[in-house]
């Protein structure tokens, strides 16, 4: 390889991840390590009511006992060195006290602007209200007042604890209990912030709501919670984006998202996950161990998850829906891309409890390089769930010879009136498809990206328009150099 190409190659390799910078910011950081004092310290820092501290401590004790018993979730098809929970920093936040957007550290604002999420009043995105989370805290929430006029509560989790404690107390842990799994337990003990949203009865949220997660500080774990309640006859579309600096260390992101949909309510929750995936040799990257679950409490309610997972060294997440209400609907649309040495074990769990409940699962896995991609899904139909229906389609696309795709669908049916369909295929981008595109003038890279976008289309079309464009672009960037 000539030095010129070599240089180009290296440039390309480092260009791969475009969000890998670090913001120089003066932070208040807790000492590393997990103990009761840290839990109390975080709770005090947040000026939390006693019930919340007690909940955190219960979670902490449960975590300790699970660790003692060695109860780590080890069933996923991912490999990594054991996490040393005592080496993690559980809280880090920019030092300034933030009363309004004008007081936010200039560097932090610049960071979000560089990420395409301007927060200032003048520049903020039209049509999208954003809660921006930087390391352990929410930096700013845009359009808060506009939304409040319609009775929509949208703010940071910490603020919600102060302003709307009854709502938080009522729903916190109601979908994902602190005993759910080790990472959810850890989150319950040490979560530092997150987003809160409540849509009142009969309101159709006029804006896309979104949370953007940015990890900046070294050595920290990010533990945030999102709690979203859509009351009767309401509608909301929610989006989530993430990125982090390039580092040699693995950083843990263990979030919890809880969704509650009442009668006739609909929640659409979309994620574009672009955490730092690690370098070409598999060094560094985010461990994205996230618990997301929604409950369709009311009749005729609907929860739809859409995720585009291109980042993280390891992705471990199963956005699920518990279908309690009669005629309720759960959906899961997913694109998961693994390249380099990335590993993804992702899928969903659809639990049918109510009558005439429906679920739909469309999962698309793309593997390139040494990437390993597993779809893991469970469709459970309880004994009272008459006429439950599920359609599952999980497709895998392989690029190259060294990657892997795995499909692990589980089905548990206890009612004979259930109707389940399952489709799956694994394919490669064929030589004939590529040649056809090239014969029409496209380069190999353009051809690959066109074909792969086509493969993902069913999922992308679920995303709000601007985010579908973003997802398409992200996929192109992620695959640069990974194909051909």
């Amino acid at each position: 390889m000539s030095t010129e190409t070599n240089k180009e190659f290296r440039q390309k390799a480092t260009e791969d991840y475009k969000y890998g910078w670090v913001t120089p910011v003066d932070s208040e950081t807790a000492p590393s390590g997990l103990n009761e004092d840290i839990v109390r310290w975080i709770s005090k820092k947040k000026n939390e009511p006693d019930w919340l501290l007690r909940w955190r401590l219960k979670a902490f004790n449960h975590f300790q006992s699970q660790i003692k018993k060695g109860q780590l979730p080890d069933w996923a098809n991912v490999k990594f060195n054991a996490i040393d929970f005592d080496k993690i920093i559980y809280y880090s936040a920019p030092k300034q006290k933030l009363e309004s957007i004008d007081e936010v550290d200039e560097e932090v604002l610049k960071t979000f602007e560089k990420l395409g999420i301007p927060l200032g009043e003048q520049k903020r995105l039209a049509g999208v209200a954003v809660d921006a989370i930087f390391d352990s805290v929410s930096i700013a929430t845009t359009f808060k007042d506009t939304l409040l006029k319609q009775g929509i509560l949208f703010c940071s989790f910490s603020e919600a604890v102060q302003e709307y404690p009854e709502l938080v107390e009522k729903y916190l842990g109601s979908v994902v209990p602190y005993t759910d799994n080790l990472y959810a337990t850890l989150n319950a003990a040490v979560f530092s912030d997150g987003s809160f949203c409540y849509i009142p009865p009969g309101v159709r949220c006029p804006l896309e709501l979104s949370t953007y997660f940015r990890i900046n500080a070294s050595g920290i774990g990010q533990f945030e919670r999102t709690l979203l309640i859509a009351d009767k006859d309401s509608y909301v579309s929610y989006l989530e984006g993430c990125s982090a600096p390039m580092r040699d260390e693995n950083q843990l992101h263990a979030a919890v998202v809880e969704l509650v949909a009442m009668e006739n309510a609909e929640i659409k929750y979309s994620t574009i996950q672009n955490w730092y995936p690690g370098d070409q040799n598999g060094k560094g990257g985010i461990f994205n161990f996230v618990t997301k679950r929604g409950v369709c409490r009311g009749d005729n309610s609907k929860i739809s998850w859409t995720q585009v997972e291109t980042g993280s060294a390891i992705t471990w997440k199963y956005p699920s829906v518990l279908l309690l209400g009669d005629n309720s609907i759960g959906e899961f649309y997913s694109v998961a891309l693994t390249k380099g040495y990335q590993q993804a074990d992702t899928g969903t769990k659809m639990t049918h409890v109510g009558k005439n409940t429906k679920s739909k699962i469309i999962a698309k896995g793309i593997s390139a390089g040494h990437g390993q991609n597993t779809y893991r899904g469970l469709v459970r139909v309880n004994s009272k769930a008459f006429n439950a229906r599920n359609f599952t389609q999980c497709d895998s696309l392989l690029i190259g010879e060294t990657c892997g795709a795995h499909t692990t669908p589980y089905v548990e049916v206890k009612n004979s009136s259930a109707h389940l369909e399952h489709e799956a295929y694994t394919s490669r981008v064929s030589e004939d498809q590529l040649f056809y595109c090239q014969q029409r003038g496209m380069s190999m890279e353009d051809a690959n990206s066109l074909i792969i976008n086509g493969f993902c289309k069913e999922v992308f079309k679920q995303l709000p328009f601007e985010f579908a464009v973003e997802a398409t672009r992200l996929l192109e960037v992620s695959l640069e150099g990974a194909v051909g």
Partner: protein
Amino acid sequence: MKNILTINSLHASIGDKKILHGIDFKIQPGEVHAIMGPNGSGKSTLANVLAGHPSCKVNDGTVEFQGEDLLALAPEKRAQLGLFLSFQNPAEIPGVRLDHFMRAGINAIRRSKNLDDVDILGFDRTITKKAEIVSMNPQLIKRSVNEGFSGGEKKRSEIMQMAVFEPMLAILDEPDSGLDVDALKMVAGGINKLRTKDNSLLIITHYNRILSYVEPNFVHVLIDGKIVHSGDKNLAQEIENKGYDWF
């Protein structure tokens, strides 16, 4: 007059199998050439070699296209220079709409010439007009490329694409196979409408059928990887009557 395409002593193989054993002919602007031959004679291989299919290996010979060494170019560069292949069995591309597919190709070609991308609405109108040339069902344009298309719909789509791409040389690999008479007339009519004094056609076919609608200037008979006979349009009729055995 300058040739569009000049093929000299072209030898090619697929895998270990030698298929073409020395092909020579040239095409001038405005000409229609037909390559006729029985199954397995190497007709499609010739088309694929010219378009640059990765499974074809050129062992010897030269091909000049528009003054360039065609065989040295990547498939997309050949397309960008104005070479178009209408596929016998075009690939399906799930999830990619036919109009988006064409636009991606046209824009790639335009970018290679430092031109701006096409205007999306204008391009939509262009496609609608071009679809009329082969009476293509306009709904198919919004569907995934070739997915669930019938044989005839695939052929029409290929000729419509030829109309959109306006190539200097179009190689039509069995544009008539699997078509009923009405469809054949429609496709042939479309091809005729696209003929100009500047562009050229290379039609690859087993039968005379399409050549009775699209009149060739030259007919070459390909058997066992060699052109054994060349003539004018009457040769096609002769083959129709006598078959290939008499060569």
